[in-house]
């Protein structure tokens, strides 16, 4: 049984048995490489639920402020963001029935589009680690592993960290990738070079906030960029304001980001926004030996106070 069928079966059961009121998952989209998050209330409609390597949106984004009992589909990173939400009191563990999906990485549709150099994907199917891409007059078989999202290439937590049921067998966690090889390259730059790198990175930003809104961490009722009294940051596309938005957003995510990559996938102008958050993830790992969302007990390092802290300035 494939992941989609198993997810539908579990979802049907928990809705019928009234374990949950709703299930949040994905349905097959209207484009070959897009899936649409969906809220299912009716057990009869669970056959809509779908899973494959294009479910890049982090479903944890849909949890804050919901009050009913929710079944939710979660790959490794989604489950870590659910854990972050639980720690940050955005949702209660008792409200959730987590259907975990062990994940072998999401495919970056941008990489497939670039490969085809203007030709259009009309259909894509996957089996046993291969993707078959078809279009007008062509068919290619590609190794899925060569087209993963950048965050998935470096992912060390492919299995869900919390779950109530699994939609597939657990996968082996990888030991081999250096999860921060890209950040090390950034760290090696001088400060001026680094500033130029980041300025270039965001030069096409339209301030549409797709990165922020796709991020499960960004649940504030009023984001600092939207506040108008006081106004923290200008709303035009002035480069200083745009940079302020990106840097401040990244700092708000420090110690909380699971590197799910939803921000980058959501960007309509293909900005690699993860460069902002990744360096902070590495700092948090180096300084506090902490990775976000691995436990529902531990508070994020930057909002933790300990009387026995080893640093004198805070005691």
């Amino acid at each position, binding site marked *: 049984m494939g992941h989609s069928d198993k997810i539908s079966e579990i979802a049907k059961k928990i809705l019928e048995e009234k374990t949950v009121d709703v299930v949040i998952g994905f349905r097959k*989209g*209207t*484009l070959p490489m*897009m*899936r*649409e*998050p*969906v*809220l299912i209330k009716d057990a009869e409609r669970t056959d809509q639920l779908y899973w494959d390597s294009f479910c890049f*949106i982090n479903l944890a*984004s*849909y949890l804050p402020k919901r009050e009913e009992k929710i079944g939710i589909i979660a790959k490794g990173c989604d489950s870590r963001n659910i854990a972050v939400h639980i720690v940050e009191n955005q949702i209660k563990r008792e409200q959730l029935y987590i259907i975990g999906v062990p994940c072998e990485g999401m495919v970056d549709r*941008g990489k497939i*589009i*670039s490969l085809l150099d*203007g030709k*259009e994907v*009309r259909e894509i199917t996957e089996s046993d680690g291969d993707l078959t891409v078809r279009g007008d007059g062509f068919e290619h078989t590609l190794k899925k592993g060569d087209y993963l999202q950048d965050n998935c290439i470096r992912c060390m937590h492919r299995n869900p960290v919390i779950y109530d049921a699994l939609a597939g067998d657990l996968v082996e966690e990888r030991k081999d990738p250096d999860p921060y090889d890209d950040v090390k390259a950034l760290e090696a730059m001088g400060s001026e070079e680094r500033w130029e790198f980041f300025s270039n990175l965001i030069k*096409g930003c*339209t*301030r*549409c*906030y*797709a990165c*922020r*809104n*796709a991020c499960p961490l960004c649940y504030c009722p009023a984001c600092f960029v*939207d506040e*108008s009294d006081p106004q923290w940051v*200008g*709303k*035009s*596309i*002035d480069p200083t304001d745009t940079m302020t938005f990106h840097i401040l957003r990244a700092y708000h995510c420090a110690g909380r980001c699971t590197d799910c990559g*939803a921000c980058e*996938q*959501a960007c*309509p*102008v*293909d900005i690699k926004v993860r460069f902002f958050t990744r360096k902070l993830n590495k700092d948090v790992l180096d300084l506090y030996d902490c990775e976000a969302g691995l436990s529902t007990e531990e508070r994020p390092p930057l909002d933790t106070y300990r009387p026995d802290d080893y640093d004198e300035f805070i005691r």
Partner: protein
Amino acid sequence: MGDKIIKKGQLPNVLKALKKTFEVFVPVREDGFYRLKPLKDGEKVDLRFTNTRLSPKSFVLPQSERMFEFTLDEKSKDAHIVKEAPKGYPPKVVFGIRPCDAKALRLVHVNFDNPEFRDPWWIKRLESVTLLGLGCNEPCSTCFCTSVNCGPFNKEGLDVLLYDLGECLLARTLTEKGEKLLQVGGVDKDADSGLKKKADELKTRAEKKIGSHVPTDKLGKKNVNDLFDAPFWDDVAFACINCGACTFLCPTCWCFDIQDEVTKRQGDRIRNWDSCMFPLFTLHASGHNPRAQKVQRVRQRFMHKLKYYVDKYKNGVACVGCGRCVNHCPVNIDIREVFRLMNDSEDSKQQ
């Protein structure tokens, strides 16, 4: 006005000649997608693009525009007086604009130039731009222009429409502005009837290739309240993350916000693109927000394009079928589905 011929090999010279009078913008592939950028000396124009990622609306409605400037310096005799910011309207040519995007400017025009309101900057910018369009020989599978009074070789809004006939481009002159442009570019060779026929066949062939179709026939007749209260909005809106990707990429979204930005005592009044997806868009000074819920905002976007605009301007839907929002919505909300839901929804029995 007639049909002229530009041999592909002559195109660089034509553009070079245009550059003496106009700022010339051409589609350039950069970081994986196309944008309209100023033509560099000696640059070869790439005609293989399907469309630019962002619509060309910013040529007429810049994302951020300084409207006015003022000083808060009490010592100045002009303190607190708002003055129009200096602006230039250099003549520009947008080469390769697609017919859908040109039509979109006409759809938006009725909002900025009508008997009630005339936006001087929109009008002057539109006047200063000459649109040298390129028809679509190979429309995308997400294009549905032919369903919304547009098409791969639609002429509305363009000054010249180019037909790519392989060896050469047939330039169909549509306005006096276009005629002048071709003169400046040194394009004077008339097309013979064989090539004209070929161009017309190309149009027919491209129209047949359009794979997406949406129904629009009942939208105008629907009761607005029935659509507003339709049962499908919750399902349409669930996935929406309320980002502005759709509205910022859309060639017909025109909404803006006006902000004052003050540095020391010098201020600018700036008009920025805004998005009905943002909660702040309708937040009142009182703190009340008439569209506080996501579903209300999503409904607004579609109702505005497919119903309010239709009723107000009797000008069809405010959508040209370019497919940008379809392709770039991160959560796959597909306006083609919403067309179907709205057009084919059941009417209320009370009427």
